């Protein structure tokens, strides 16, 4: 029997304190899509070094013998993996599951999940941040980019919501 989720306001306060500690200790906010990007970059570097060095995009991550895998953002993402697991274990929510509306098939859900992920991280790289990196951390430092990103993400999701309603409800 799984435990109920934490009260959203309490969870929000907890998340806010985590963000605050990141600001206080490391002078920066949280971030997630950046971690995924660095994983890709380090794989590309390992598999096809010449391509990485020639490319305008990849080369800047390998300057001065840097290792993209050992980066603040990748460490955060590994931590998220661990922290989520701990929370799931503590609240007895560990379970293999596919979440979707009962009206659609598993395959459809997984395909949309993949496409959604691709869209989202592509957009996040363009906007230089995702909901955690740009919107949440950005709002906490009062940056215009943070607010604009947040408003466009939420606004756009509302606009597209009707078209994808079958997936959820």
């Amino acid at each position, binding site marked *: 029997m799984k435990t109920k989720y934490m009260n959203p*306001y309490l969870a929000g306060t907890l998340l806010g304190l985590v963000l605050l500690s990141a600001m206080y200790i490391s002078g*920066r*906010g949280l*971030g*997630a899509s*950046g971690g995924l*990007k660095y994983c890709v970059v380090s794989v590309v570097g390992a598999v096809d070094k010449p391509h990485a060095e020639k490319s305008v995009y990849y080369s800047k991550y390998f300057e001065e013998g840097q290792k993209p895998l050992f980066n603040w953002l990748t460490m955060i993402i590994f931590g998220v993996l661990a922290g989520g697991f701990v929370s799931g274990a503590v609240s007895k929510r560990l379970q293999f599951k596919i979440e979707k509306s009962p009206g659609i098939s598993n395959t459809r859900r997984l395909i949309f999940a993949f496409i959604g992920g691709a869209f989202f991280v592509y957009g*996040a790289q363009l906007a230089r941040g995702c909901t*955690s990196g*740009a919107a949440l951390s950005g709002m906490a430092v009062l940056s215009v980019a943070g607010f604009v990103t947040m408003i466009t993400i939420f606004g756009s999701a509302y606009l597209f919501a009707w078209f994808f309603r079958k997936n959820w409800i």
Partner: protein
Amino acid sequence: MNARQILTTILLLLGLILAFLPLSGNYSFHGKPGKLLVETLDENTYCTPDQVARFVVTEDSTMQLIDLRTADEFESFSIPGAINIPYSSMLSQNLESYLDRDVKNIFYANGDYLANYALVLARGLGFQNNMVMKGGLNEWYRTVMNSEFTGERISARENALFETRRKAEKMFTELNSLPDSLKARYRESKEIERKKLDGGCE
């Protein structure tokens, strides 16, 4: 009261406090008189217009010129690379943003006195890393802008000094004869270069 009401009340109270808190926290003048006395007489606190000319010509980014005159005077002409903090508004600004950085700040004004007062204020509030350009813009005009080639070149060093002065004079004239919009753009780009911090989710 449910969670939402408790939370919003607490946040509203804290927000109210923040809205009316004075922005710049607590700046207290804690300079020891003895120390200030010695520091303001120390030669290393002062640099000459020639030295400033060299920083300008080499675009030395470890130095930051701070122009203490009014905004109007600054708009009509200034030394390339300088930022404008009018003396009268020095304390109402967010001091740390320009005094507490890795660079050495060099104060200047038309003459000597404003820059010296600014130095004492800054040192007294605890900021180190600042200097004064001796003689101010008056001295700059005398030595750099109006430098004359007098007779034979005597030594390599004097040659180099003359070159630097000429180059600085050129940069000064060029920057200050730009139309205002371009001047503003040049300053903006310098401003943006300063603030490179680590972070984001890129």
